[in-house]
């Protein structure tokens, strides 16, 4: 049993950390305020290969493992959760299902531009009336010659505003419930795909959260992902993997806030002493650090399980549950340690608190994670 990162993982971690310190961290406040990640930063992220971490080299990726991907998302999210979720949603929710369920020609066609960042990936599953209850979806498809025609509405699509490559889910017959759902690879610049709006949000404000109206979108037969009726399985398996990315994002947010709180507690003097000498602050720091380190163990372990093709659905639910609740807890306490300054934008922990909350919601709420874990225990 070895709890150390390998030298290769450490090289990756330190390289991404250097990049984030110099290129991402100085922009984090601006990204939040402008509700936009600058195009130049996305180009730098693409050029570094952060969008193709575990895509095999034959499809233009780096060919690294799932743990490397988790380390990338963690490091980026320490400084900027909006940039972290761009990478996470792109990789877990668009690249991964193509990699696992796509045909060879689909992989050759769609993965290279995704790995290079020419196309940003997204996942069009949620609808106004179908959130956690995926099988209730109202987006419908019908056959049209060799291909398909799709109509409906999708909401809360992370990265949707880039109009890149989307994995779109639709049903052929609502009475079939989850058995009627299929998945399609779509170009979001196609005719019939209309952006209704990009949401204004509490946190991850630099990330697009997009609503789409899909009107008579024509999808060629070769863009069906997997087989007809396999969509629900594709969605669920993709989300199992996606949870590792979101857990890594949550871990990074918590670490970013903790680093600031720890440093501030040593600098800030009250009553003639640094506040880190007060037990009330010391106990906060101990609790924050303990939750972060237990999150790290379970996030890395889930990545290892997925990489080694072992069953990981329960672990990925646990790692997302624990890391996301750790992120909201740690960022809240980081504000408390900062006192009034923590409430001010410049000190950044208020942004991290806002950014953390979504990790308890997207890609399966904490309640859904508890459902997955308890079902497995009791089945």
């Amino acid at each position, binding site marked *: 049993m070895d709890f150390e990162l390998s030298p290769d993982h450490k*090289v990756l971690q330190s*390289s991404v950390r250097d990049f984030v310190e110099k290129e991402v961290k100085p922009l984090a406040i601006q990204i939040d305020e402008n509700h936009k990640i600058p195009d130049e930063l996305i180009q730098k992220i693409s050029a*570094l290969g952060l969008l*193709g*971490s575990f895509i095999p080299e034959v499809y233009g990726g780096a*060919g*690294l493992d799932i743990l*490397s991907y988790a380390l990338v998302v963690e490091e980026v999210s320490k400084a900027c959760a909006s940039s972290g979720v761009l990478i996470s949603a792109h990789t877990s929710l668009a690249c991964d299902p193509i990699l696992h369920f796509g045909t060879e020609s689909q992989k050759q066609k769609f993965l290279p531009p995704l790995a290079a960042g020419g196309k940003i990936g997204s996942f069009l599953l949620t609808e106004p009336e179908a959130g956690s209850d995926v099988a209730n979806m109202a987006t419908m498809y019908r056959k049209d010659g060799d291909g398909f025609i799709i109509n409906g509405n999708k909401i809360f699509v992370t990265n949707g505003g880039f109009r890149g490559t989307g994995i779109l889910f639709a049903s052929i017959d609502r009475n079939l419930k989850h058995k009627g759902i299929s998945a399609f690879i779509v170009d979001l610049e196609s005719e019939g795909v209309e952006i209704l709006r990009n949401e204004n949000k509490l946190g991850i404000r630099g990330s697009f959260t997009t609503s789409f109206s899909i009107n008579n979108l024509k999808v060629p037969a070769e863009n069906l992902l997997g087989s007809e009726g396999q969509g629900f399985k594709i969605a669920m398996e993709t989300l199992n993997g996606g949870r590792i990315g979101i857990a890594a994002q949550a871990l990074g947010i918590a670490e970013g806030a903790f680093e600031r709180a720890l440093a501030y507690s040593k600098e800030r003097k009250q009553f003639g002493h640094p506040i880190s000498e007060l037990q009330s602050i010391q106990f906060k720091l101990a609790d924050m650090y303990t939750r972060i380190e237990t999150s790290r163990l379970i996030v890395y372990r889930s990545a290892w399980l997925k990489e080694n093709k072992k069953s990981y659905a329960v672990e990925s639910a646990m790692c997302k549950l624990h890391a996301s609740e750790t992120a909201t807890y740690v960022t809240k306490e980081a504000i408390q340690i900062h006192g009034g300054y923590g409430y001010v934008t410049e000190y950044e922990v208020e942004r991290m608190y806002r950014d953390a909350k979504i990790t308890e919601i997207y890609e399966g709420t904490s309640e859904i994670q508890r459902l997955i874990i308890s079902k497995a225990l009791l089945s």
Partner: protein
Amino acid sequence: MKILVCVKQVPDMESRFKVNSEGVWYDEKDLAFKLNEYDEFALEQAVRVKEQLGNTVDITVLSIGPDRVVEAIKKGLAMGGDRGIHIKDDHPWQKDPWQIASVIAAFARDKNFDLVFTGLQSQDRGSAQVGGILAELLGFACATTLVAFELNGDLVTVRQELDGGMCAILKFKLPAVVTCQMGLNTPRYPTLPNIMKARQKELLAFPVTNFIGPKNLAATERMYLPEKKGHGLVLEGDVNEVADRLVGVLKEKTTVLR
């Protein structure tokens, strides 16, 4: 052309240092280590030479130290080095700069290197001696504290940073050892595909005893944390008067104003 880049792994300088039990070095336990910053400039310049001259250039990245220094070598390979040499030594800090340079020279002597890049100094010991001694031992030309580097054929032209804001241009022929200063270049970030490719590159390890050299010329007697100095100077009073006093202090005690 064969290039050697000598790199060191040093603690993150933001760490909290403690003196070790022998009292002559810092305690390495609980420290996070990274590639010496000056050596990143050395690696970057070597890779630029390779980009200039093409694949006839072969870059060897060498480091002396315990197993953890493999991370520094691998970073060098991910930046563009072709092969790595790890000279295993669990206590490199017990060797003085003369011995470290002697070990490198013993490795390099029969390898026909044309150009050796290294950092101006390490961030932990800061002796700035290894490059110079290595050049002497190999009989190579030497230039230190480079802020610009140019290679034409076997002629090297460099700009050297000197004290007092002065610079000097030096010209010399290969073979040479050069030590690199901040400002020489902006080191690239290793890309993920190159980090992956670095895993396939040759990385040979040798015990330091293979390169056993001379005894040390100097030994560290004691290492300690200096006592904390007094607090900063706080100027108070009328703004104009404070500004005049500040200008006076800057002229008197710093080189910011003359």
